[in-house]
């Protein structure tokens, strides 16, 4: 067939050749685009769309799936900070977190510092849920803690508060860990400050003594080693402005529902 149409041989070679050139150009072109601020802003429109659609689908109180005890896996792997090196934290860990307190302040009527014992003595809730890491892995564990909305009601959060910023005890390469969520997720029935995993006090790798569970979002939103919860009008005014350690340090989405 090809010997009858010599012109089409050239065409084929040209096609294959141009495909090769296109592939090489495609990659360097993508890296150049990736560094372009306007293009980056365009790509991030997807986050706005994802949040709008998911919130519309979920409503305020759509629940994350809960599992039965036999679904619990071998472990909930520790990621990010596995053992905080901060001297204050190490001291607290060495004394069994006996002096650990959780402050809730900012736009609240009654700023309060809760002792760890007080938190553990409050009405508890337990849920067996799936932890989804942004890296792609998942783990199922049984979390026990205090409902965050109950804590917010105890300190009487003002109407002007639109977000909660979680200040943590661990410091990573780019600075202290922190996270933020809006009041929809803060008052979601499954959102809690957890102090136990699989019926044992939280291990250090999983955020001892207190960590956030915000079940409809990815793992990096679930701040560990929480020392202080601050009610704010705008999370963009805290730290680097991205609303979380990984958001600031690496540009992850603030809304991590996908």
């Amino acid at each position: 067939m090809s010997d009858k149409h010599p012109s089409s041989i050239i065409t084929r070679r040209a096609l294959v050749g141009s495909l090769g050139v296109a592939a090489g150009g495609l990659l360097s072109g993508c890296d150049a685009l990736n560094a372009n601020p306007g293009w980056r802003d365009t790509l991030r429109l997807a986050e706005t769309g994802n949040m709008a659609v998911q919130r519309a689908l979920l409503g305020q109180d759509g629940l994350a799936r809960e599992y039965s005890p036999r679904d619990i896996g071998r472990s909930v792997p520790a990621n990010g900070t596995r053992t905080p090196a901060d001297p204050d934290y190490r001291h607290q860990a060495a004394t069994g977190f006996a002096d650990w307190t959780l402050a809730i302040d900012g736009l609240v009527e009654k700023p309060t510092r809760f002792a760890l014992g007080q938190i553990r003595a409050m009405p508890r809730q337990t849920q067996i849920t799936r932890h989804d890491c942004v890296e792609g892995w998942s783990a199922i564990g049984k979390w026990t803690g205090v409902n965050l909305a109950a804590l917010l009601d105890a300190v009487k959060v003002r109407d002007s508060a639109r977000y909660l910023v979680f200040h943590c005890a661990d410091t990573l390469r780019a600075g202290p860990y922190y996270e933020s969520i809006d009041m929809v997720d803060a008052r979601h029935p499954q959102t809690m400050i957890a102090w136990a995993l699989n019926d044992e006090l939280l291990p250090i790798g999983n955020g001892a003594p207190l960590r956030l569970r915000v079940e409809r979002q990815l793992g990096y939103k679930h701040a560990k080693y929480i020392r202080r919860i601050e009610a704010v009008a705008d999370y963009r005014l805290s730290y680097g402005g991205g609303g979380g350690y990984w958001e600031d340090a690496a540009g992850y989405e603030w809304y991590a529902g996908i």
Partner: protein
Amino acid sequence: MTGMIAAMDPADPPRLNAPAEPSPKAVPPHDHALSTRAWHWINLVSLITLFMSGLMIFNAHPRLYWGEYGNRDEPAWLAIGQQAQRGYLEIGGARLDTTGVLGRYSDSDGTVRNRAFPGWATIPSDYNLADARHWHFFFAWIFAFGLLAFLIISLFNGHIARMIAMRGHEWHPRNLWITIVDHARLKFHTAPGEAYNPLQKLSYIAVIFVALPLMIVTGLAMSPGTDAALQWPSMLFGGRQSARSLHFIIAFSLMAFLLVHVALVIIHKPLTLLRGMTIGNRA
């Protein structure tokens, strides 16, 4: 496009006034509707971008599992990694040495990197999970709405019924077998009045109605937010990690389709087919 079948149909009575001239409305074979041509190229760009940014996302955790959960403490059915300065791909317990491509490779400047998929295959080319996710989700919107628009338009304008719907007799095993044998001999022909032969039709049906929609549904099944709202996608596939595995398998199947598709265009009628899918052969 209706003119195409009329022009090719031997039963079509000859026109009285212009017997030799094709009707001005007749479209040469291999030409496609504007909606098909536009979607074809938008879809190509989004699929390539989704694939390459997807490979970077996979690099963040290059292990695949079946079931609801899976992590470094659980058994994986597929893993890419490195051990003793060699890269490997492990599938179902069998290990292949893939040094140079998977697990461990050298950059263009000679730097040795431990990475599942090499930089030349990923967007961005360096390790950056956050950026790969931005690319992936932006093009996921284009891909999903492009597919939706194409399906709606093609169902209404008759494109699907006319070009890729299987006729009753085409399902006959003997017909299918003849087409398969012809393809193996690189002989391609279509029945009079048909745009595609049965094997082509079945491929397009599998891609457009099965593989592409499954990419969207398996993708959504991985999202903790969507999973809380709609639990059927991840239930359907047997869990989040199963959905992730299927997302990966179907993505590679689509890349295999793309390679065969391009190869067949090149060895068949590259210029005519390329024109038919771009400016049209009348232009």
